[in-house]
């Protein structure tokens, strides 16, 4: 594994987006993973539609039938992959733009830009997560966002952060080996995370989180996708 890795430098990550006052982080995390996987398989970066997921995706978890994707009311990335596979694909942002409100489903199968072949969840081990990030592209992750409300910059390495209360979906786009930590008196590895709260939040829309200890549950809800390449 490379010591440092960043999919942004390779052109696999779209601009930071803004979910607005809508609990649709799961849709942004999903499109980010699919945009990245599509880049890995085709070399082309497409900006995909979150609004299609917000309006049209009502897929439910296989184990918990009550955990269903519900627009601004929340959802799960793994549910969304299932929806995209069943619906036949995702439209581009330009053909189905984001409004930040749940509306009538206007999905047009004729405008599909990317199709999904499959998806998987990734083991808890953060080295495995890094390996899958390098191999498959940016990964959708869930984490506990409690420290993100007040985060401005730097490497976040909270002494206490619940690993169980995952409430926010984001996109893992890379990692660094040397983020300076005053507390630990040295350089600590960190994850580079794309958020969906606009560029004015955090480090131009990005969050750096300590790597290696499952901080804030960052290792507990990780998934990767593979897109279908048309011949």
């Amino acid at each position: 594994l490379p010591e440092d890795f960043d999919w942004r430098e390779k052109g696999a990550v779209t601009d930071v987006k803004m979910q607005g006052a809508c609990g649709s982080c799961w849709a942004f995390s999903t499109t980010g993973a699919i945009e990245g996987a599509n880049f890995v398989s085709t070399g082309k970066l497409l900006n995909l539609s979150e609004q299609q997921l917000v309006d049209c995706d009502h897929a439910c978890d296989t184990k918990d039938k009550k955990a269903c994707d519900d627009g601004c009311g929340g959802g799960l990335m793994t549910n969304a992959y299932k929806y995209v596979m069943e619906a036949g694909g995702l439209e581009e942002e330009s053909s189905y733009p984001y409004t930040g409100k749940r509306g009538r489903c206007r999905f047009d199968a004729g405008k599909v830009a990317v199709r999904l072949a499959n998806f998987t969840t990734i083991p808890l081990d953060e080295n495995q997560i890094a390996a899958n990030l390098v191999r498959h592209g940016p990964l959708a992750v869930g984490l506990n966002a409690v420290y993100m409300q007040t985060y401005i910059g730097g490497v976040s390495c909270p002494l206490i952060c619940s690993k169980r209360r995952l409430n926010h979906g984001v996109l893992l786009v890379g990692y660094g080996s040397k983020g300076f930590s005053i507390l630990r008196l040295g350089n600590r590895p960190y994850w580079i995370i794309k958020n969906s709260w606009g560029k004015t939040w955090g480090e131009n829309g990005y969050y750096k989180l300590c790597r290696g200890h499952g901080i804030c549950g960052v290792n507990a809800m990780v998934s990767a996708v593979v897109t279908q390449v048309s011949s």
Partner: protein
Amino acid sequence: HEDLAIRQVTEDHRKTLVGTHTESRFRAFMSEYGKSYETREEYVHRLGVFARNVLRAAEHQMMDPTAVHGVTQFSDLTEEEFERMFTGVLAADEGGVGVQEAAAEDVEMAEIDG
């Protein structure tokens, strides 16, 4: 007031915050993030929330010294409002649904050496 049977002995933060340094910071926050509130009542309420979030940011700074914490675009929201409006991953049970089923599944482990 002297005739009241129950006398208030705790501070009413909503009133005491008006005209303080915290209010000046709140006004700077409103200007920076283009915030406005429809009624005076809402303004005073948000000022109180802002003051609590300034304290929360200081607590986060102590708990997370390698990052920088402070006033953000979400500083006028309670923790519950923030979570409801700006997050959105379902967590039906303690661990949350969708939480790593992969650990128990037969997932191919990647080679990570070298």
